[in-house]
């Protein structure tokens, strides 16, 4: 299998993952400059007023950063039963963005689960964590994520992120790309 994304290329494939409802589809849609591809279908269980569809294939979008990097953005399905898609989508990807839904019972545990699942594809230096809905449980902050992730062996950048805002998603991507620039240099 040939990886068409050359190490010194300014085109990078970036993968978004996280639990159902963490905002992968929304993030890709918010930042993409062209119409995105989505494979959302109605949820057969666990649907809410604000979340009635779920991704079963992948999301796809594209964007460009100010420093000339062209990014191909892929979003995974969140559920464990679609793990086979995670491995397919991770092939040839440069970096990983894990989105956390802070309103869930153990969002840090969720993040650790995804980091472990993708550890074979991405080193920690090519991973960024974005935490959404932080205001729903303000007593637990970003530092808590950093501490627990470090304890689990993952020293990765963690940022508060509103996936509906393009500038927030752009910041996550910029951090990943700055890691690429360091590697290329």
């Amino acid at each position: 299998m040939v990886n068409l994304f050359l190490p010194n290329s300014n085109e990078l494939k970036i993968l978004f993952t996280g639990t159902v409802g963490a905002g992968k589809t929304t993030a890709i849609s918010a930042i993409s400059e062209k119409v995105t591809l989505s494979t959302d279908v109605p949820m057969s269980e666990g649907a809410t007023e604000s979340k009635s569809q779920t991704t079963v294939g992948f999301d796809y979008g594209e964007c460009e950063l100010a420093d000339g990097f062209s990014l191909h953005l892929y979003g995974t399905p969140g559920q464990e039963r679609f793990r086979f898609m995670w491995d397919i989508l991770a092939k040839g990807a440069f970096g990983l963005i894990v989105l956390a839904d802070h309103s869930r019972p153990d969002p840090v545990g969720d993040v650790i689960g995804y980091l472990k699942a993708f550890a074979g594809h991405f080193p920690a230096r090519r991973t960024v964590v974005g935490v959404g809905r932080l205001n729903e449980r303000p007593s637990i902050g970003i530092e808590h994520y950093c501490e627990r992730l470090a304890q689990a062996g993952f020293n990765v950048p963690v940022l508060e992120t509103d996936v509906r805002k393009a500038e927030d998603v752009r910041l996550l991507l910029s951090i990943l790309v700055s890691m690429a620039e360091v590697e290329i240099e």
Partner: protein
Amino acid sequence: MNKTNQTLTEVQRKDLTAYCTVLLNDFCAKTAGVQSATIATFDGVTVASTIIGKTEGDKISAMSSSISALAAALTNEVKHPEPDRVLLESEHGRIIFIKVPAASVGMVFTAVTNHNAVLGTLLWNCRSTSERLAAYASKFLG
């Protein structure tokens, strides 16, 4: 794939699973070469399967859901209507995915066959099975 999602009660769910099990057994009995048959929701949850292991059946359900959604995304991209079925062929046989038509409860019917299956008979029986399922499922949610 953009159906309105409605939730089944536990009783309806069991009823539908029981009916699907009967349908699948009937399909396997009258279709040569079938190795397994599975019915899953659009989002990849197993409704019924002839596959013995739950994990193996659930994997087929999730993959069926992904393949069907990706096929629909591809046809949408080229301005074609969503496909009613997807057919994969390999040295060992065929895998067919059928979208269950007109069902309020969106489902995908998947049949895995070896070379003993005759394509015409297979397609005919798959369509017949999915239509029976659609008719039955419509009694729950119209």
